[in-house]
């Protein structure tokens, strides 16, 4: 039964706003419980709109994990679009959860998933719309507690002023332990401080208020100290038995179109490749796979309970799944009959095959996407993207012979050790793919080839071998982009480069520290939100905020950091050692590659989370 007061007000607004269905809830498989019977009510907030948030797998998993426990009720909350937000503020409707329509501020725990740095202002906006004080220090009582998880928690420091507690690492188990600890605190009438002290003892929970940071004159960190017996560093949480970990057998099925409209299987976690620019590949280590029979069963349950006609196999690098053929065969055993398409995003260039192309019939003729990332072998070696030009051309050939005439290639510019030669190499690579098409006697007839080159500006991230590197300035990136365009010699090649202030902001927050809290607050108060949306991003306001806070973005983004500098994210331990990152960084500067984990262990340190200390075998 929905909150009647809010329901009535919202129903009056629905005919007047865009895509009203996003505020309605009542979707297939959503969970309703009795308010009074819930020991803990959790508001899971995705800091973006419904159509984006409902595509997020993590939310689907944790929604189910929590609701699977009878005494916990988890509901979903998304950021309202502008017109709805304006109407809500005018009519004094506080941010509410989709299932019960109850105000978010009345929940026990308000949890945000931090997926990308540019969603931070949306977190503040949602708290404000909910009527919850933004700063942790302004919230005295146990409820509502504001928590956060997700990939950005690997460097949570810019959000330390606003979030009471972070959950670094994998959430399936720790989120339940958090709620148990909270339910206990509620029963015993503990204060917020007492609760936080208890929670900090749970592995995989980081309470920022229990740590103090001191700085040198030059702005770098002098020391980080823990109060009392709070752990330092805080270790991320890892699910040991990934095969048996809880996975939902139902997904909430939205009525409206979302970014991804399909059932999803999580095939593996972590990555063996060790590409030096990639944060995800390191923070999700150690590499763990699910048993293909487990996956097959999970896939069937999901498709039966949702009715989706597409099943996606999701992971950082699905073609590295050891038993991929067996898995595909098992799935095709029933998906073909039920006319369910299999989709395999994130295909690696070096193990793509004709068979793969055939089995994944969901690949629309509109295009295949591959990511060489760099235009020359030297630079690919430096970033440890271990693919050769031969791999690229061989894959393009398979795609062309399979009937595809559109290929998308992803590259980055601004990579460490990059020279102009490497930029020109991108154009040359694209040209070679075009030439290959015309040299093939069996190419698709009556069609001409389209090679779309998408280029993005590289942002160095924490917990990668490039965490020490300076980011290219926006001017430098623009110059390189122009250089690239001037070397494109064919109409069959299109280059899409998005020059955006987004890269500047990412550069500040990705490797930011606690002092950025005041920048976030200032920018938010000036009206910044939905920063990842082009039509909302307000660079002038951010510039104002930066100036008023006396913050120089170059300090965070564009300077080279020494190997022995203390980094804000080193409060946390994500399994991969700094020594490893230093070793890899040195190899990058010598353009030396490192083999993948299956070929040879490079001693990153994540093996301590594995049985017997070995990731494989």
């Amino acid at each position, binding site marked *: 039964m929905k909150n009647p007061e809010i329901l009535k007000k919202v129903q009056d607004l629905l005919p007047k706003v865009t895509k009203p269905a996003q505020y*309605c809830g009542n979707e*297939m498989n959503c969970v309703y419980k009795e308010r009074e019977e819930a020991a803990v009510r959790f508001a899971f907030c995705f800091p973006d709109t419904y159509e984006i948030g409902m595509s997020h797998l993590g939310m689907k998993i944790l929604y189910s994990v929590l609701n699977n426990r009878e005494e916990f009720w988890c509901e979903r909350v998304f950021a309202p679009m502008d017109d709805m937000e304006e109407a809500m503020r005018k009519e004094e409707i506080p941010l509410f959860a989709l299932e019960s329509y109850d105000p978010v501020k009345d929940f026990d725990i308000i949890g945000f998933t931090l997926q990308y740095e540019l969603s931070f202002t949306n977190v503040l906006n949602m708290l404000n719309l909910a009527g919850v004080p933004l700063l942790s220090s302004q919230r005295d009582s146990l409820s509502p507690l504001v928590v956060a998880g997700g990939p950005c928690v690997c460097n949570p420091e810019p959000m330390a002023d606003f979030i009471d507690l972070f959950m670094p690492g994998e959430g399936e188990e720790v989120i339940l332990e958090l709620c148990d600890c909270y339910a206990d605190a509620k029963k015993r009438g503990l204060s917020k401080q007492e609760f936080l002290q208890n929670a900090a003892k749970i592995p995989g929970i980081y309470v920022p208020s229990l740590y103090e940071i001191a700085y040198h004159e030059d702005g770098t960190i002098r020391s980080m100290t823990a109060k009392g017996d709070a752990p330092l560093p805080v270790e991320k949480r890892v699910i040991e038995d990934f095969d048996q970990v809880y996975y939902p057998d139902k997904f909430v099925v939205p009525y*409206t179109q979302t970014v991804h409209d399909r059932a999803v299987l999580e095939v593996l976690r972590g990555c063996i490749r060790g590409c030096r620019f990639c944060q995800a590949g390191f923070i999700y280590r150690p590499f763990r796979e699910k048993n293909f029979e487990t996956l097959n069963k999970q896939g069937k349950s999901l498709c039966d309970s949702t009715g989706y006609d597409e099943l996606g196999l999701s992971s950082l690098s699905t073609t590295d799944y050891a038993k991929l053929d067996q898995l595909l065969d098992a799935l095709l055993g029933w998906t073909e009959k039920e006319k369910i398409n299999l989709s395999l995003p994130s295909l690696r260039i070096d193990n793509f095959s004709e068979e793969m192309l055939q089995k994944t019939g969901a690949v629309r003729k509109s295009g295949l996407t591959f990511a060489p990332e760099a235009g020359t072998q030297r630079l690919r070696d430096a970033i440890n993207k271990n693919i050769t030009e031969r791999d690229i051309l061989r894959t393009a050939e398979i795609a062309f012979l399979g009937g595809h005439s559109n290929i998308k290639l992803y590259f980055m510019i601004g990579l460490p050790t990059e020279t102009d030669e490497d930029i020109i190499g991108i154009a040359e690579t694209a040209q070679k793919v075009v030439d290959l098409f015309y040299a093939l006697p069996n190419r698709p007839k009556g069609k001409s080839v389209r090679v779309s080159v998408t280029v993005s500006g590289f942002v160095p991230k924490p917990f990668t071998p490039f965490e020490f590197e300076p980011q290219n300035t926006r001017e430098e990136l623009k110059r390189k982009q122009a250089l690239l365009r001037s070397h494109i010699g064919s109409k069959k090649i299109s280059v899409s480069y998005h020059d955006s202030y987004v890269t500047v902001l990412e550069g500040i927050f990705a490797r930011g520290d606690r002092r950025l809290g005041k920048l976030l607050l200032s920018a938010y108060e000036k009206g910044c939100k939905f920063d990842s949306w082009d039509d909302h991003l307000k660079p002038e306001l951010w510039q104002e905020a930066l100036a008023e806070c006396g913050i120089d973005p170059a300090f965070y983004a564009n300077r080279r950091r020494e190997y022995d500098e203390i980094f804000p994210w080193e409060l946390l331990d994500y399994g991969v050692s700094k020594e490893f990152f230093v070793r890899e960084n040195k190899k990058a500067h010598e353009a030396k590659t490192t083999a993948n984990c299956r070929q040879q262990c490079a001693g990153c340190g994540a093996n301590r989370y594995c049985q017997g200390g070995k990731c494989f075998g």
Partner: protein
Amino acid sequence: MVDYRLFFGKQGNGVYISTLDMNRMMQRALKRSLLPVWYSQGFNPHIYCSFPLPLSLGVYSDYEVMDFRLNEEMPACEVENALRAALPEDFPVKKVARPQMHVKTIGSAAYRFTFETGEEELAALLEDLFTWPELLMEKFTKKGPREIDLLPLIQHHQITRGSEIICLDARLVATQENTLSPMLLYDAIKTYCPALAAVRCKINRTAILNQTGEEFV
């Protein structure tokens, strides 16, 4: 390949689901129902389902129709039960039957507009509207905006007043050549009777009729 016709309602927040979204939703429901549904042929087979008279967004309904096909004949009540189990509660299943009339025979649709007010003056205002020589509104068509007179498109109307509500029952033309959307009529009412614009109104489709005034089945 056997044709079936589903009669269902649209309630609660389901009224904000567009026809396109409803199409997707029905396909998934048909899939979940485990019925032997018929798929279209060709490159991208999908479950065939068609809505002969789509409903404007925001309008409730007790009389929605969807045509679909099964690969084999089955007892209608079995099909009905399977669909009832597979559909969300905002879309209650009324009946499943073999289609008897062709969609081309659809002639009109009946709607009830319920205004949350019992004021005599407002009821009189509404009565008066239907005595005007013409009721002009701008209709947005594919060829651009056109001014049309709504009155000839309203085949029948009746206004009743209670202590708390005023009901307008109207039968609006709905053929392949011309259809009057209830929302357009509602906009006209709000435009020409501004006093009614401030009153909450619920619009509900009560029936779909063929050209001779019988219920479309």
